[in-house]
């Protein structure tokens, strides 16, 4: 291994992935505004650039030059740390997300992922669980009533839905027999089928849980304007507010990428077991990954434009009395079937 392989290439990959994510996040905001506008027979942003294409740039400049206010009675250190704590986990998760297999690039074997640790999936879950601190601390440090209420709501919601989501991930781990993200895609290639078709229930719970974990409609109670003014980031302005905003969209991209990897074969083409569809391999592997993830991002927006917000007790009832029991049942059945199949030599 030369210095280029061990140091330069990983560093380059990190720079590319981080920048691509941040650009994707800003354009995600534009996409959301456009799609929701179309859903409501409006045009959406049209002024900056052709069809509003430069709107994210204008937004970014606006947020950066806005006055950055810290409330007098705020807990200064924690108030500053909270946006950072919610942004960082959303970004470092990309370290283990595989965008494609190893490919030859300029005569060199390059893996289209930053690293493939053998506890990849657990890494994602644990990093995501740290992200909740950003929300709790933002509410606490603002020293203001509405943000505190919103942050308590948000953290109760995140903790509740984390249980259901993690249980569905265990079903996937039982199927694939590995915690490595690359290994899970390889297992789907080997099985010749995307796990969404074997584990539709697990996928459904994962996606609903994902909506709740990212505080998206119909579970966007933490920022319910009618009840809580602006939610846990009411007291934030300028770039610090922007960090919360970016973290929310970065988390949406994370959920989409993880859903793609675990349930929709990651970089695999559709029907990887049917040789007659081999002509589809002309599309590069990372392109499949991006297309699938984009579909999920679109669904996120589509759901927001379609469904009204849940009430808080409905949200909790759905999480604890419907999703968690279903996830446990799914887990037990998956385990039994798997043991029987392994016993039969499958």
């Amino acid at each position, binding site marked *: 291994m030369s210095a280029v392989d061990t140091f330069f290439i990983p560093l380059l990959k990190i720079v590319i992935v981080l920048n691509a994510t941040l650009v994707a996040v800003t354009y995600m905001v534009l996409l959301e505004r456009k799609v929701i506008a179309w859903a409501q027979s409006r045009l959406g942003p049209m002024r900056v650039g052709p069809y509003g294409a430069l709107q994210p740039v204008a937004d970014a400049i606006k947020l950066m030059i806005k006055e950055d206010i810290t409330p007098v009675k705020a807990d200064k250190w924690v108030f500053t740390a909270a946006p950072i704590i919610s942004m960082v986990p959303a970004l470092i998760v990309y370290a283990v997300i595989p965008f494609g297999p190893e490919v030859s690039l300029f005569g060199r074997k390059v893996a289209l992922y930053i690293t493939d640790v053998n506890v990849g999936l657990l890494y994602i*879950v644990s990093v995501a669980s740290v992200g909740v601190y950003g929300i*709790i601390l933002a509410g606490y440090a603002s020293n203001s009533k509405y943000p505190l209420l919103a942050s308590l709501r948000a953290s109760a919601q995140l903790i509740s839905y984390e249980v259901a989501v993690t249980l569905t991930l265990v079903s996937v781990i039982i199927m694939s027999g590995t915690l490595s993200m690359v290994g899970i895609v390889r297992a789907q290639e080997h099985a010749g089928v995307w796990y969404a078709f074997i584990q539709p229930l697990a996928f459904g719970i994962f996606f609903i849980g994902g909506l709740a974990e990212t505080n998206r409609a119909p579970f966007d109670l933490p920022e319910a304007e009618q009840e809580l003014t602006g939610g846990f980031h009411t007291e934030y302005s300028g770039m610090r507010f922007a960090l919360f905003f970016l973290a929310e969209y970065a988390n949406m991209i994370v959920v989409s990428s993880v859903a793609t990897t675990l349930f929709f074969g990651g970089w695999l083409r559709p029907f990887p077991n049917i040789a007659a569809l081999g002509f589809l391999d002309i599309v590069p592997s990372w392109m499949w990954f991006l297309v699938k993830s984009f579909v999920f991002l679109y669904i996120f927006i589509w759901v927001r434009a379609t469904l009204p917000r849940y009430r808080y007790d409905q949200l909790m009832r759905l999480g604890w009395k419907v999703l968690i029991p279903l996830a446990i049942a799914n887990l037990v059945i998956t385990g039994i079937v798997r043991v029987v199949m392994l016993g039969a030599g499958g």
Partner: protein
Amino acid sequence: MAEAIAFYVISAFVLGFAIMVVSTRDTVHSVLFLVLDFLFVAALYVLLNSPFLAVIQILVYAGGIVVLYLFVVMLVNLKRPPEAHQDPHRRTKLGLGLAAAVLLELGAIAGASYSSPAPAVAATAANIPVTGNTEQVGWLLYTSYLIPFEIASMLLLVAMIGAIVLAKREL
């Protein structure tokens, strides 16, 4: 060499944050230092080649248990400094006594493990038919340590039922 440097740097952070946990006045800050401390302990596990333990450390302690601590601390609102004890010297004596006891215990454990470096675990590790950190931990939990593992889960179940009974007066 690099590993030794990493170990000492990480250990310095672990100890430093541990001191911050007990010396800060603000309870919420103290809990936050505890989270940082747990993250650096996880880094120590990575250094010991057990990534599974490292991510579980973050998931269970930093991401789970301490979040609940934070809830409690935030809700009871300890902004007001606690009232001083009638006899501050009694508290100091008690604390010193407890600290001495813990130190003695740790010394005994360290001495015992130094004289006989855990042969039992080393022997079972060689017999494990699976490779990979996660698989090995799972194998050990479900073979050599099955009964302690099951007892631990029973304890958690009992605690959970207890909490429900206490919280709901009328079931």
